[in-house]
């Protein structure tokens, strides 16, 4: 009896020690991930302000009475569904909650400038699961959330754009030389982000691959480095930024899909869709689209500003 008790006690103490160690370790790993370039240096903030100051503003004639854009202008703020935790796309600065940086965030600000003449964005962070519902019940006006245009989704909501085209790529541990691309993933354990296009795209390419999904990108990277999977499939730009920040990880091969990102709108609002598509053309011609890319995704990818995809070029847009 005494023996069993003392071993129980030891078990409890051991549990506490393990838990404390775990807390300490996770604190370390949180530190090391903070060097992901988030594009909110002081210099870049002024760059972004300059971009917004020079951005096009819609003509009064475009705000037809009773239209969605008129309602938004009367309200005085644009309600956008966008993430707050996506590096390079839409990331909130925890020390300054008003500073949300990234490609999606800059485009949302540009759209608000187009409507009001000055940036005025209210962010509602959507879960990927609820974007359609948020648009359908009018909680948000538009969604900028790496929202891949698909025909299934286009039956629920409307898409303006595409405003950006990206693709999924494969990342592996830096010392892994066996996997050189999507073709080598048959029968392997593949890590993906929950609710990302990879959940559907990987089984299409490699039906025998076993998927493990994690909620956030840092979790997925950690899982890959700890050996919970052989490879991590994610958006190419996001992987490139991970690889730039962490030398234990490398991107192999070229993107194997084309993901057209659209701007989610309420279903069937053709007037508002035209309004946004016109705005996209204006910022593409005006150079703000390219600037938004340069200040966000362009900070980790060594290439020229990409050519924006043709508006309406994708089924569902």
């Amino acid at each position, binding site marked *: 009896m005494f023996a069993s008790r003392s071993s129980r*006690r030891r078990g409890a103490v051991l549990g506490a020690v393990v838990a404390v160690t*775990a*807390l300490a370790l996770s604190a370390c790993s949180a530190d090391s991930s903070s060097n992901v370039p988030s594009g909110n240096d002081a210099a870049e903030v002024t760059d972004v302000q300059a971009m917004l100051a020079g951005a096009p503003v819609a003509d009064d004639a475009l705000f037809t009475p009773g239209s969605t854009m008129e309602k938004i202008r009367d309200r005085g703020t644009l309600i956008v569904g966008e993430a707050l935790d996506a590096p390079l796309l839409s990331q909130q600065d925890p020390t300054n909650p008003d500073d949300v940086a990234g490609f999606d965030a800059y485009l949302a600000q540009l759209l608000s400038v187009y409507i009001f003449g000055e940036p005025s964005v209210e962010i509602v962070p959507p879960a990927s699961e609820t974007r359609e519902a948020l648009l359908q019940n009018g909680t948000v006006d538009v969604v900028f959330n790496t929202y891949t245009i698909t025909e*299934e*989704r286009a039956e629920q909501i409307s898409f303006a754009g595409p405003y950006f085209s990206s693709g999924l790529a494969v990342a592996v541990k830096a010392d892994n030389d066996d996997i050189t691309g999507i073709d080598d993933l048959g029968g392997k354990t593949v890590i993906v982000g*929950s609710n990302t296009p990879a959940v559907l795209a990987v089984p299409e390419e490699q039906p025998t691959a076993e998927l493990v999904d*994690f909620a956030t990108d840092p*979790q997925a990277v950690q899982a890959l480095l*700890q050996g919970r999977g052989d490879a991590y499939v994610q958006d190419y730009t996001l992987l490139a930024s991970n690889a730039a920040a962490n030398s234990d990880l490398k991107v192999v091969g070229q993107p194997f899909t084309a993901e057209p990102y659209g701007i989610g709108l309420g279903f069937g609002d053709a007037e508002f869709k035209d309004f946004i598509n016109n705005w996209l053309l204006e910022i593409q011609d005006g150079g703000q689209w390219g600037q938004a890319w340069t200040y966000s995704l362009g900070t980790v990818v060594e290439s020229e500003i990409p050519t924006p995809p043709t508006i309406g070029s994708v089924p569902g847009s």
Partner: protein
Amino acid sequence: MEIFTENAGLLLDAIGTTLLMVFVAGIGSLILGVLVTVARVSPIPILRRAAFLYVQFFINVPLLALLLLAVFALPDAGLILPLLPTAIIVLTVYEAAYVAEAVRSGINTVSVGQIEASRALGLTLWQSLRLIVIPQSLRAVVQPLGNVMIALAMNTALAAVIGVVELTSRVNKINLVYAQPIEIFTGAGLVYMLIALAIGLTAGRIERKVAILR
């Protein structure tokens, strides 16, 4: 509706995983929780202290934090387990703290006189706990334990975050294809409701059977 019929196999599989987690972690946390309570009322000071700290730790740290620590921090310490067992172990030790609190309140319903009587009759500490105190205290807390088990069933959904393909994770994936969040998540909610109802009704039946009428 065809969403559910087209994916029936996948959904049943996921519901099976959820039920497995509820069942294994439920039994495990009941056993562990009673042991922690015994330690907490034992006459050995260090055991009481350890049990107190155990309960306080697990009641005051969010389950999600524990799950993430177990999945991402323990491998750095050289301990890597598959995801489903990790989730079940974390759920077990977490819910055991709540079970221990419920059982402790049950122990307070056993009058001191009974314990004094059992000692007077020559029962050892272990015998009086096993034969007098624990049976009566468990009977007094059937319904509260049922509530802890319902909370456990709901908490299994958090395992979706760490990559366990249970019901919540599966419906997330299905929604990604069909983009019908309201229907899909209402369906999942109904399944969780049925699980909770089943646990609640079972607890009610057991309570009526074993209750001590005073």
